[in-house]
């Protein structure tokens, strides 16, 4: 009320005022961009941020690449989204050897215990809903069996990306988030945009990686 008065109105404005442009409309060139360019750009940007991008043509090669990475890192415990991700990418076998406690055993336990388990995992494996080529970003929507902590607490984050979900610009993803099927704005799930490993320059400006979040980020991109 006080605010409206200060702005010279008797009552707060009821209707959303019109304006000539919304968002970044017209600021980017409208040229057509091909899939290959988008994937190549995403990989280049992610690598520039210190992440690792691995392109895989088939599910089989993605599986091979994943076991190679896991062998290299030799984790004791791996945490993974349980929303059917492993099945969808056909990597259940690959993961089975690494989960001493069994993946399913983790679900349903009380929150504190669950978080503690994820915190003890060396690697967190998640999928992603979108990616942004321009900024080397993966975009994760929270949901059932898609714990937010899986991409946050373990030292290494491995994200499985479908080539088709990569967009060129941040604005493209934001637009789609605004039109998620089955959602109105206020039911939007928590969205995390992740661009490379966690970083800080707080000590004498010296860049350090893995301050609180993961110290390494691998993106395995399935192009097919």
């Amino acid at each position, binding site marked *: 009320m006080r605010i409206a008065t200060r702005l010279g109105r008797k009552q707060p404005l009821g209707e959303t005022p019109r304006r000539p442009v919304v968002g970044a409309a017209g600021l980017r060139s409208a040229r057509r961009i091909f899939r290959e360019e988008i994937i190549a750009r995403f990989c280049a940007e992610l690598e520039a941020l210190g992440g690792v991008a691995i392109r895989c043509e088939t599910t089989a090669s993605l599986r091979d690449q994943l076991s190679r990475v896991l062998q290299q890192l030799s984790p004791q415990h791996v945490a993974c989204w349980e929303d059917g991700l492993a099945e969808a990418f056909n990597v259940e076998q690959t993961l089975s050897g690494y989960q001493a406690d069994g993946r399913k055993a983790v679900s349903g336990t009380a929150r504190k215990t669950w978080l503690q388990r994820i915190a003890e995992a060396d690697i967190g494996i998640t999928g992603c809903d979108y990616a942004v080529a321009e900024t080397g970003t993966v975009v994760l929507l929270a949901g*059932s069996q898609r714990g937010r902590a899986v991409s946050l607490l373990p030292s290494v984050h491995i994200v499985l990306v479908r080539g088709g979900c990569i967009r060129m610009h941040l604005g493209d993803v934001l637009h789609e988030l605004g039109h998620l099927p089955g959602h109105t704005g206020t039911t939007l799930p928590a969205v995390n945009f992740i661009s490379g490993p966690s970083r800080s320059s707080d000590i004498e400006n010296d860049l350090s990686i893995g301050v609180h979040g993961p110290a390494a980020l691998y993106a395995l991109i399935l192009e097919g």
Partner: protein
Amino acid sequence: MTTSSESLDLQDRARRALEDDFLRTAVRFTTDRLKTTRKTATEQLGRWEDWRERGRQIRAHTVSHLDHYLGLFATNARKAGARVHFAADAADAERVVLDIAKQQAAILVAKSKSMVTEEIHLNRHLEEHGIEVVETDLGEYIIQLAGEAPSHIIIPAIHKTREQIRELFAADGAEDLTTDTKALTAYARKRLRETFLQADIGITGCNFAIAESGSVVLFTNEGNGRMVSTLPKTHIVLMGMERIIPTLADLDVMANLLPRSATGQKLTTYMSIVTGPRKLEEQDGPDDLHIVILDNGRSRQLGDPEFQEILHCIRCGACLNVCPVYRHIGGHSYGSVYPGPIGAVLTPLLQEGPEFEELPYASSLCGACHEACPVKIPLHDMLAALRRRQVERGRGTRGERMAFRGFQMAFSNARRYRGTLRMARMAQAVFGIREGRIDAQFGALRGWTATRAAPALADKSFRERYASLEQDVAIGSSASGTVQTSGADGQLTVGKTEVNRDE
């Protein structure tokens, strides 16, 4: 938390900062680096000026319709399941947070960086009530251990050396620590990990709040913002009432302007859009989300033609990095929560009173801040307007006011002007003239002449010499008199060169 230098006045704090060599080098190094990375990042985007202009339009539109958008945001945030509280001032906000903490029987609060919580001195308040508050941003953690306040809004511990940091960590319980960045970081990671998992409440700021969806948007690099908003059962967001943008589409513009201007990144490592608390079927995320919307002097700027635009600020810190004054003296010298050009304008506006009146004078009015600002806030105009407003309200020492009134009297009347000049000429002989400059070693003029060139008055004014000059020209002889101009302080002196020598 208090600044150790809080009791000193602006001049003393600045002088002390100038004496600290490391600080000066560090501040200049960082701000240089940020300046260059910002330049690269803005060039890469392309059409930077158009993006800036769009940013300005969005902020201007939102702020001038804040009544609507703030209401819309609150409604939608509530729809999303958040609890929204309005706080008129710092005390109000503190009370709200304390009530929530008491309800939760909280003993440990984990915080990520937030200037608003600094503004209301929230930590001190909670600690007085026996609640432990841990800053989890690496830089903030360091200065919390040191018992200091941030000196830069993006890099709070810009003034600390790695040796100092090692000592602080050792006192905190770290053993066998080297000054290696990796070792220091690893210690903080391990130490704060426990805090994240044990904290009852997580407190964050808010970079943007989206009206159409009731979402809060957080930009962070270290991941502590995500920790604090994900792991504890309760998440409290503190936001200034002007943080609103209308739509998700507008976030596109802000997300391109803010990180590029702040750190030269295309996007910060993490950008989180949080809409309401955890959904029922989720394994993590907070059960309760509280959003505290703070006024604390902000609404007073609404409708003010000169200062409303200060509410457009997106707190990127770019104006600090380009400011010649900030680069010399660093953040603590300002003695306020918000340093640099933005602080010099914002602080006296939010907190009226004598305490921060001199802040608008900590600027050279060069306009670099305006050039750098991603939403084109005319900070230098505001600084000048603030100075004017203070003079109108009677700030300034009595001597200063008298001098200016005298100035007005003397210059508005030709005869009085001539008389004044003759008097002044006599007076300057008392202060002492050195190499054509007044060199006051005592008295009221000393502060002025110590840092400025005050050209001495010629023994005869141009007016007085005009008649004889005409004669000189007529005779065609200029041997006895040369005309000399001196541009210092925009004054024009005309006279014989040899006159002004120190006798």
